[in-house]
């Protein structure tokens, strides 16, 4: 479990980091918390000649709580997502989800940027970002562009990001006050990726659902956001029939595969339970 040799770079601004990426092409990779990348290197499934550490780049840090939106730096750790009071006040689902990632040791070091950029279907943040309709700010040699989390993921480990681009920040619009949230996750133990996980946001006004968003983790080779699930809830009182319709829509959209957690039929069943629990809990909090 020892990685092959590599050269270590530690730039202090994004432009330099991009420059190094450009120079070395696919020989180079940025490292954030390293808690996805380093294990791959130790298993020698990733062999990189150059590692560009982002931790000295100040512009990638910090959580900004605006009147209408929140901006989270890529290098913000998962631990900070849990402890930041302003973030909790603005988007309480962040803490609930972050607490279900890995264990405290991993969360002290693992970053939100690494989690969403990684492209591993097991990561919890991508589904959450789709649920929140987040926007990723991406910088490259040609400048800055913005991509919706819902458009970012192509297949396992393949994303819309080019190899010489860096994800710098995540922007999330604040939600109406009447929004209930939930992030449900079934896992085998602390530190495990999801057998099935689901984020749900439901806005209720006067007993009627006015907006709803449901997204799932580790149930396909990308995170899955189900537009139909939200549609099944909007306009209803989110009673059992509407929830069942939303769950059915979600199950339509997923494509789990067998692994040590169990076969497909088990995962589909569990997914149904977890999705229902997430929606019901979000509704109960709305």
């Amino acid at each position, binding site marked *: 479990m*020892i990685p092959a040799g590599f050269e270590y770079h530690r730039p202090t601004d994004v432009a330099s980091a991009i420059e190094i990426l450009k120079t070395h092409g696919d020989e180079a990779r940025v490292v954030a918390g390293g808690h996805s990348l380093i294990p791959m290197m130790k298993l*020698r499934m990733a062999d990189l000649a150059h590692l560009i550490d982002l931790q000295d780049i100040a512009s990638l840090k910090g959580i900004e709580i605006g009147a209408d939106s929140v901006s989270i730096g890529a290098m913000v750790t998962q631990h900070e997502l849990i402890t930041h009071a302003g973030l909790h006040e603005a988007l309480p689902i962040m803490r609930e989800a972050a607490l279900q990632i890995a*264990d405290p040791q991993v969360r002290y070091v693992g970053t939100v940027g690494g989690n969403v950029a990684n492209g591993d279907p097991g990561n919890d943040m991508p589904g959450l970002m789709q649920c929140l309709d987040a926007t990723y700010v991406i910088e490259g040699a040609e400048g800055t562009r913005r991509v919706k989390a819902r458009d970012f993921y192509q297949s396992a480990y393949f994303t819309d990001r080019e190899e010489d681009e860096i994800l710098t920040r995540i922007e999330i619009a604040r939600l109406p006050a009447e929004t209930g949230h939930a992030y449900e996750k079934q896992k085998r*133990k602390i530190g495990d990726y999801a057998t099935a996980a689901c984020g749900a946001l439901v806005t209720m006004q006067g007993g009627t659902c006015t907006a709803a968003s449901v997204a799932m983790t580790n149930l396909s080779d990308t995170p899955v956001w189900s537009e139909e699930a939200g549609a099944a809830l909007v306009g209803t009182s989110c009673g059992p029939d509407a929830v069942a319709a939303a769950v059915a829509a979600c199950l339509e959209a997923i494509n789990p595969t067998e692994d040590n957690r*169990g076969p497909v039929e088990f995962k589909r*069943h*569990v997914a149904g339970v977890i999705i229902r629990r997430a929606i019901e809990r979000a509704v109960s909090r709305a």
Partner: protein
Amino acid sequence: MKDAVDTPEERSAGLKGMGCARKRVEDVRFTQGKGNYVDDIKLDGMLFGDFVRSPYAHARVVSINAEAALALPGVVAVLTAADLAPLGLHWMPTLAGDKQMVLADGKVLFQGQEVAYVIAEDRYIAADAVELVEVEYEELPVVVDPFKALEPDAPVLREDIAGKMEGAHGPRRHNNHIFTWEQGDKDATEAVLAEADVVAEEMIYYHRTHPCPLETCGCVASMDKVTGKLTLWGTFQAPHAVRTVAALISGIAEHNIRVISPDIGGGFGNKVGVYPGYVCSIVGSIVTGKPVKWIEDRMENLMSTAFARDYWMQGKIAATKEGKITGLWCHTTADHGGFDACADPTKFPAGFMNICTGSYDIPVAYLAVDGVYTNKAPGGVAYRCSFRVTEAAYFIERMIEVLAIKLNMDAAELRRINFIKADQFPYQSALGWEYDSGDYHTAWDKALKAVDYEGLRAEQAQRVEEFKAGKTRKLMGIGLTHFTEIVGAGPVKNCDILGLGMFDSCEIRIHPTGSAIARLGTISQGQGHATTFAQIIASEIGIPADDITLEEGDTDTAPYGLGTYGSRSTPVAGAATAMAARKIRAKAQMIAAYLLEVHDDDVEFDIDRFVVKGAPERFKTMKEIAFAAYNQAIPGLEPGLEAVSYYDPPNMTYPFGAYICVADVDVDTGEVGIRSFYALDDCGTRINPMIIEGQVHGGLTEALAIALGQEIAYDDMGNVKTGTLMDFFLPTAWETPNYTTDHTVTPSPHHPIGAKGVGESPNVGGVPAFSNAVHDAFRPFGLTQSHMPHDHWRVWKTANKLGLHG
């Protein structure tokens, strides 16, 4: 003088002797990161070894090309079987009378098998060089199912012994067959089965798992070419045995080998065996003239060093209509992997599996075990249990439940009416053991009362109603277990490993100022020997435990012993400690009598001193006696105060316990939540209640892991599916429930202090308790047996098969 005014209670408490919840003296260094583990050993010029391992489970090794690896700067050597063959070290004997390849000799038999050994100047270079060794393989058909391995046309795994129909444990009937071991009376048992009112039959599978100690295996070998002396530091649960075996296979004289087990970060049986890494490191040091270190990584540990369990146990249990058990029959198919490297006493190729009549008075029984080769890693060690005792306990405790279902009886009551009664001890079991002592009814009644068993059953019945009415999706299970262990191997007359008798030893030296050092043939891997053995001495000779240093693990200084596993340290070395202490006390008595100018018989031992009988104001403390022993010429006595004892136990000890687990099972997600766990242990005399509690907590957590998810799983190609801690379930504090511990005390009649050993009880009794709880939750819906581990998807599958998903 203070001694004169202290009350007997105060003097006794000051010793921190037996019964005291003395804090572990080891923890000061462990909790400060000041332990000294094998990987902490750094020697000048030390080189590092690393293995090229087979990606295939069964393949011919066509060629090995090490050129590119050797060309890498910093690489010193690459060893293959061809290099070891001239030394006769390309194969090595296993503890089970088989032999095992040190490095692949023409073929590989399991994924992760050692193929070549790279030696380099540092770890990083060694790891890079491993990648550069080119091995060409030709894949062969893989057998991972022990039943298929015995089919007539199964591929021959062990070509080295193909056609050899006699093995280390008797006749072999197939090329993939290792041995058949039979115990008990087959004909009589089958006759009882044929006549019985009721016979319950079931296949009980105890899956393959792994001890997975926190510290993986490793060693540092250092051959001093000037003195001719080999020093070997390593993760050895039996350092003396390693020294003797090393002498026998290497040809180096035993006095020129010094084996040292430094601090060991958990063993659980994983560190009993001899691994290719040790042999290659020794050869590497001899070849290079430099010390060579080898440390496994986690994946290597899980994939290649000793696994545990993997027993398919077909059982039949006969009873009267009223539930009195009349006979037990068991046929076990034991999957041993590619080599038979089980660590069992020589005469017991299936360990003490014949304790499988458990806590019950079963008049007639029969056990047969077939050992089988497959394309899996070798091992078969006792993972925190005496040899195959946890398999036996799981088997009988499941069979009791299966019988209770068949009889439509309460499983607690069925146990009660079949327990061996207190007045039947010593009890001769149908499968050949003499149980030394026990009082099962008392323990059982105490346990049932403590958990309010009746109340739990009522609640469970109500839960079933609520479930049927659609008010809940969680079922409740009550997991019962009454286990009996057999530990403390053991009497030399029937217990040896590779011919080495399984006695153990202790040497005690009292210093002139009244403090002491004791050395034992055992080695702690976390059990707290330095704490508890000092307590035995403290009580026996009246020196405070805090004034006693305890040392183990260095074969140049410690007396010879067979090491620590199978809960044998307290039953065997603990007995040796008491006996050595008593020799010292006997001499101290003579010294005291001389000093007090009375006859030997006129003084008596009193906590920490000898007093003149009838005149308690006239005494000599052990401190005074120690000083006199060295500094006063006493007619007829040699100076000094020390003793050594080698203890060959007359019998094993038989700890037992009653465990009750209450679980809530979510039928939709398959999650099992442990609501409560009550563990009553009877380990005889209790030396340190806090250490016992710690051992029970740790062992129960391992049992939880095994029952609920921990396994070494293979796919059909023989690939290990659970080779990292992401998939191999190691519970954290989060998954660990609260435990309630309790005890009864039934001292062993033949042990000097009546102690029986407790380290392994919780694993032995815990697994059936957790598993029975899951089974019990589904009993009202018709479940008889579902195999462990009860992870989410398997529990879900059980619910699904029973039609509980609508």
